[in-house]
């Protein structure tokens, strides 16, 4: 178990290194040099050289990359923005909590709902409940969240005054207000994976229910809930893998949803950085997203190793 953990963590680190290298060299490969972006077009060669020296841009790219990676690994320092001069990590830590809250709430809601709905759908196969859940799930995977957001804003914020059309009311304004302001965003963010995970839970549980060991569990006279636990231990493995991925992907969806609802989360930082061509910041935000994504996958793998050691070994 510990060996598996180390192995997986090692592969994840390797992936992160490869990916961050891609990212770093891509941002360095564009024709615009940071100096030109910051100083504008009409500057002297000497000023450009001075800027590059000040920011360490005159060193070989590999050395720059090594410095950057070392800074992240040792101090969690993502570098400094050439445009604003502020530390990238502090820019990110200002807006990350907002996005994180949306994603975490949406993630846990979709996991809970999909586990219940998928299990109900499988156990009540071919009943009206099953059909209803499956219909909603097909709609959920097909309707893009940001369009749903527009429609819901029209329905519940413009026509009726149920939820605010945008923005996130801070917690200091009261818990009720705060929750009210995140209902629509988290719903639009979570609906897709709610549907995906429900479908997977159902399919996987149905497959497991037909296996020999489920017959054994019933032949042993185990109580019904215990039989279900026995089934879930096996059927959740593929679901957990996708759930882990979905946590990371939800950050991506959150970018769009935040834009629709005018929420100043990481998306605001990223889109702003793109507009200002602040590549250090773009690079930092993307790296944080990628790190979260890889971490979530790692957590999913380890959860599976605990749920079902044999399957986990097989996929290792």
């Amino acid at each position: 178990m510990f060996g598996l953990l180390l192995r997986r963590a090692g592969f994840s680190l390797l992936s992160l290194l490869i990916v961050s290298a891609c990212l770093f060299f891509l941002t360095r490969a564009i024709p615009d040099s940071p100096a030109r972006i910051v100083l504008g077009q009409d500057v002297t060669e000497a000023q450009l050289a001075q800027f590059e020296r000040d920011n360490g841009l005159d060193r070989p790219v590999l050395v720059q990359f090594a410095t950057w990676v070392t800074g992240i690994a040792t101090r969690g320092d993502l570098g400094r923005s050439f445009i604003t001069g502020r530390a990238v990590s502090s820019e990110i830590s200002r807006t990350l909590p907002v996005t994180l809250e949306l994603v975490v709430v949406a993630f846990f809601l979709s996991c809970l709902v999909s586990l219940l709905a998928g299990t109900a759908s499988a156990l009540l196969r071919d009943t009206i409940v099953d059909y209803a859940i499956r219909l909603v799930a097909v709609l959920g995977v097909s309707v893009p969240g940001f369009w749903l957001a527009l429609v819901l804003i029209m329905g519940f914020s413009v026509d009726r005054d149920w939820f605010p059309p945008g923005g996130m009311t801070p917690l200091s304004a009261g818990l009720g207000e705060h929750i009210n302001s995140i209902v629509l965003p988290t719903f639009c963010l979570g609906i897709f994976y709610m549907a995906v995970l429900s479908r997977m839970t159902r399919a996987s549980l149905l497959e497991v229910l037909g296996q020999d060991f489920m017959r054994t569990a019933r032949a042993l006279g185990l109580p019904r809930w215990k039989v279900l636990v026995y089934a879930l231990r096996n059927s959740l493995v593929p679901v957990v893998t996708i759930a882990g991925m979905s946590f990371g992907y939800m950050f991506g969806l959150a970018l769009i949803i935040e834009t629709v609802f005018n929420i100043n989360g990481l998306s605001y930082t990223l889109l702003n950085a793109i507009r200002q061509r602040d590549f250090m910041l773009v690079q930092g935000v993307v790296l944080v997203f990628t790190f979260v994504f890889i971490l979530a996958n790692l957590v999913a793998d380890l959860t599976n190793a605990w749920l079902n050691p044999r399957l986990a070994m097989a996929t290792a």
Partner: protein
Amino acid sequence: MTGGTTVATTVPLLHIEGLHVGFRNGDAVRHVVRGVDLRLEAGEVVGLVGESGSGKSITALSVMRLLPPGASITSGRISFRGQDMLDLGHAELNRLRGGAIGMIFQDPLTALNPAIPVGRQLTDAIRAHQPLGPRAARDRAKELLALVGIPFPQERLRAYPHELSGGMRQRVMIALAVSSNPSLLIADEPTTALDVTVQAQVMDLIDRIRREFNIAVLFISHNLELVAEIADRVTVMYAGRAVESGDVHALFASPAHPYTRQLIRCIPRLDGTSGAMATIPGLPPIIGALPPGCPFAPRCEAAEPQCSQDEPPMRWRGKHMAACYLAPS
């Protein structure tokens, strides 16, 4: 029963009468078990023999009410200690399953939950039937593993099924089946998936345990020779029906049904007298497309015109029963 010479003075442990099991396919029902009678007394071992598709496993699963989806008992009675199994509610049924009736399945790799350590599976089974705390259940689980001959039972409690060998897994399966002191053990081809050497060990284990605890065994196999080792009585099934039934020695000494005769002839002999391996010509009939008359008639070496008209009923032939017009009476 047609003979009626044995009038039971006591209630049998397990009594199956006229069991019909059918698979529903649209509006049609295809019967895979067509009127099977079976009787098991306490402590007795009865073998149920037949080719795959003969309905022997379905008969066994019917007792536990564990039929696969789509299959259902269309008529007949199954009673356990005089209690009608088909009348039981879920709670009463669950008390019997794994309690008074234990069951062993063919492939121990697929029959054990791969995600749960064997110790946990044992304690769950134990605690479903006995009022034991976690610690007591664990001790009992350890005891059971030792009983089925697993070395280092304490350590093995934490093992997952895939970490054990095939023979060990089947031993665990047996431990699960007998964990709550059953009076009936249903063994559905318990050695088919195992190596020949392991097969003998598992057979010995089943025999030892059933003697030690006086457990009746319904032993299902396609292998007549294996059944002969352990069973007191044998019922041979063909195409969903019992075709011959009786004391194992009498049956071997003078098989009345041509199918049984063929089966006995197919047992390979170590002394090599039979020369080439004998086989039964032809294939078993397809369920749902049974020939008229005796289903074995198309493959039977002694078939007569009468055989292809009406299906012969079970009748007493000397010391055992057979469903054949040509059997010596």
